């Protein structure tokens, strides 16, 4: 289909969409109506039932935990798919570029900067772990903290510590973490079966509120998600950076 024709089709559809959208928006129920009841129940019951203060984590890892299992396996499957697609590049034995971000530049960052970056990696990992394991108390949790943990590997790459970067990236533990994180969620969900409860029921003791142990299975699931997200993003980073390291040789 040629371009002008495509645009005509698009604008015809867009006008129709805009009209329908307006019609729907006007008829949406107000804040006091049906769409609020579920959230009101969550807000009222999270603290008395689960002893945790972050209701978003309660929804994610407990009340709607089964949906999050689905989300997590979408993540797992797309990381796996990317790995399968990009792994074949290894066979070609291409010479790696010294700097994939700016190929023309052959001067690396100074020693002071490399050292500083290595020092920052520790801070970054500590912050990532803090975000993961305080998800039930304050904003955070496995999804956000996992990404922060994975970015610690990226900062090593940016500091030109390529050997360290490659050693971390190709470590078998990364793949194990990715798989174990995904499996951990399901295994924690199966704990409930020992009490003859449905899958993912929060059967562990809820602990004291405002402490890290509060929330029963919530912090455990959050940690398992954090491990999986961190492992997945590290695998993706390496797959893509390896691709940029070898792509120059193709032309």
């Amino acid at each position: 289909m040629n371009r002008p024709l495509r645009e005509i089709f698009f604008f015809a559809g867009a006008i129709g969409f805009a009209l329908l959208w307006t019609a729907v928006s006007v008829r949406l129920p107000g804040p006091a109506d049906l769409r609020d009841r579920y959230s009101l129940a969550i807000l009222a019951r999270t603290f008395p039932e689960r002893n945790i203060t972050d209701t978003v984590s309660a929804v994610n890892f407990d009340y709607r935990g089964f949906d999050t299992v689905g989300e997590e396996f979408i993540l797992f499957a797309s990381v796996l798919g990317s790995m399968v697609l990009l792994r074949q590049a290894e066979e070609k034995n291409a010479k790696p570029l010294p700097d994939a971000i700016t190929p023309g530049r052959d001067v690396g960052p100074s020693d002071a900067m490399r050292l500083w970056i290595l020092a920052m990696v520790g801070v970054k990992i500590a912050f990532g772990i803090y975000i993961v394991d305080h998800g039930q108390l304050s904003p955070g949790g496995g999804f956000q903290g996992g990404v922060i943990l994975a970015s610690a590997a990226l900062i090593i790459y940016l500091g030109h510590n390529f050997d360290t970067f490659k050693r971390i990236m190709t470590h078998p533990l990364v793949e194990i973490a990715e798989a174990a994180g995904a499996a951990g969620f399901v295994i924690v969900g199966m704990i409930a079966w020992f009490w003859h409860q449905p899958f993912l029921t929060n059967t562990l003791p809820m602990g004291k509120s405002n402490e890290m142990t509060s929330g029963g299975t919530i912090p455990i699931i959050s940690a398992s998600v954090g491990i999986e997200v961190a492992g997945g993003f590290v695998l993706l980073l390496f797959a893509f950076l390896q691709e940029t390291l070898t792509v120059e040789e193709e032309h």
Partner: protein
Amino acid sequence: MPGMNHLITYTGLGVAAWMFLVGLYGIVTSRHLVHLCLCLTVVQASTYVLLTVIGYRPGLPAPIFTDWVQAGSLAVDPVVQALMLTDVVVEATVVALLLAITVKIHKRTGSTDPAAINVMRG
């Protein structure tokens, strides 16, 4: 102030629709597969705006209980926020998968123009 509340809601709904259409226009007229993937993220971002607007309640705090927000008190909708925070991370990996496919298409056909690629070629 009900007037202000309605203004915020309708502005948000309008912004969500606008982002959806702009992203879709980018996909329809795209000449580069990477550009197409980024347009898809714009379309996806429109759902975040939509969910934020649906969960918004005027004057109420975030759904995290602190010393200032008493446990069990009213707050904005936590359900839509939970939907969004998983989706942001999952979307990033799905875009990575699409970009990996783009890399493979470029290697196989030497082109990144969606119109120039015959996907069914063996």
